[in-house]
């Protein structure tokens, strides 16, 4: 069974859009998991355990909360922006 010709373009772009959205959700959940583990895991839950490691003059757990987590946040939004630029191109949704 073949679909009517005039609809195939629309179906194709519809399919592409849905695939784009799924890919976007994957990127987002990956990066948000890192965000949650760094901020709430390393930053808050395991801080006391991590404090038994020393990094230069910093107890490591303390460093995560006062410095490290913020560096990770910046890197996460940067990776997201680059990654989404690539997805936009691959799925042709940028223009």
């Amino acid at each position: 069974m073949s679909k009517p010709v005039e609809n195939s373009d629309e179906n194709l772009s519809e399919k592409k859009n849905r695939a784009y959205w799924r890919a976007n959700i994957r990127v987002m959940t990956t990066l948000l998991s890192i965000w949650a583990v760094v901020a709430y895991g390393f930053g808050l839950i395991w801080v006391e355990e991590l404090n038994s490691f020393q990094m230069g003059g910093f107890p490591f757990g303390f460093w995560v909360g006062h410095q490290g987590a913020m560096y990770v946040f910046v890197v996460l939004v940067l990776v997201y922006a680059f990654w989404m630029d690539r997805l936009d191109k691959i799925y042709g949704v940028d223009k």
Partner: protein
Amino acid sequence: MSVQAWTYSLVGITFGIYILIAFFSRAKSTSGFYVAGQGVPAFANGMATGADWMSAASFISLAGLISFMGWTGAMYLMGWTGGFVLLAFLLAPYLRKYGKFTTSEFIGDRYYSQTARLVAAVCTIFISFTYVAGQMRGVGVVFSRFLEVPVDVGVVIGMSLVFLYATFGGMRGITYTQVAQYVVLIVAYLIPAAAISWKMTGSPIPQIGFGGTIQEGANAGQFLLETLDHLHRELGLPAYTAAYVPGKRGIVDVFAITLALMVGTAGLPHVLIRFYTVRTARAARWSAVWALLFISLLYTTAPAVAGFARVNLIQSLNGVAYENAPDWFKSWEVTGLVQFEDKNSDGLIDYEGEASSNELKVDRDIMVLANPEIANLPAWVVALVAAGGLAAALSTAAGLLLVIASAVSHDLGKKMFAPKMSEKRELRTARISAGAAVLVAGLLGIYPPAYVAEVVAFAFGLAASSFFPVLVLGIFSKRVTKEGAISGMLVGILFTTAYIIYFRFLEPTAGPDEWFLGISPQGIGAVGMVLNFSIAGLVSLVTPAPPRSVQELVEEIRLPREGR
């Protein structure tokens, strides 16, 4: 030149620059007034967002706050930066793609309901007013400390300036003045911080010096943080770098506060609106990158300043004879920000964890304000700190006032009660609303409501429990209905408000044992958010699906491309 002369010149020059910028980039249309014509480059919007977000509290109080909390201050640091990750991933690009003027407008359209629009607009106005009261007070305080005019006169000067550029400049004017204000505030923050770091640890980069060794004095060669923990133990205080030890907040509360601040940040209308001002959804993603980078410059410096100031404070004052106290102590004693009471009459300043015998009272703001003097920096640096504090307060105030004006003239006016209004009239209404909002904000600055700090925490809880869940659901689900969204928002707000009012005003002496799961009023927004999500989801399951047109709108905003 004296400090006074430097301060007058620097503040005068920067104010002149702001007014000039606002004049040349003033808004001529409603789109220009509300969203700067949606033509702001991502990099500039990043700076504007930084200035918009970092208030007088971030500039003046953050380092001092952390200084007294030690590790627990991480909840503010992570809470106020981590929210931008949520903003970048979950909201900014989609709200930009939707592309109209306000957050309430999105909620009204997505939830096909004037009631939802009204609830959102009223929340916007309330949240922004509570926030702006603190800013105006900040302007007044900086004026009074550095220019020696009464606080109220300071508020009036600040008000007149914001009045000029917010009413005439609109969002376009505000955006470019915020860019200039970001530059002023970050330079003013980093110079004294670098100087102190260099003096104490030999590294001009505070983020590194913080983990370095002390250069001079009795503890030379020892790690700064090790010294700090040691000093704290001697004074009978919990160690600076320790988490959850007795005397500090418990893990559940810290967790809830961090979450409430992150989610609240992502739901604050004056922050959200900044992402409407760029050209494309792609530019909104890059704006978030620049914004978080520019904000982190200050937010990673603040904990270092906190550590330096803490060591400095204890070493230069504790056990020192009062007549030998350093000059900066004497000059700030006049302002009442530091106070010494010789309880045991031995002539020495005894600083202790035990309140009954502690003789030194220190206001947290001193940690940033007195920094240049503690580090013996020249007069122009002191003046720069004053200009930086003013830039931080004014930029945030302007952003908030604009959001209030848009909510009144666009959401309540054009979209609800006066739909036939012409564009020209709407623009005039917007200017008048902005002007009126400045006046109210000024009054709030001159006659501040009691508990200003609590009220600001309230703003975060409210943003977390009202906007964030319905915005995220509105983008990521096509099934969430107007009944779900409205009941979710109302339950979230009412729960959060009731909890804060009960424990702040009716039972202020209650502690962690009485609190729900040990969560303080500051962190309760996190619970309000969870409630909002759950109710919105459950109610949506039993109410009819949104109309076809709304589902199409959701599909449309998920794609970044321009046009239809």
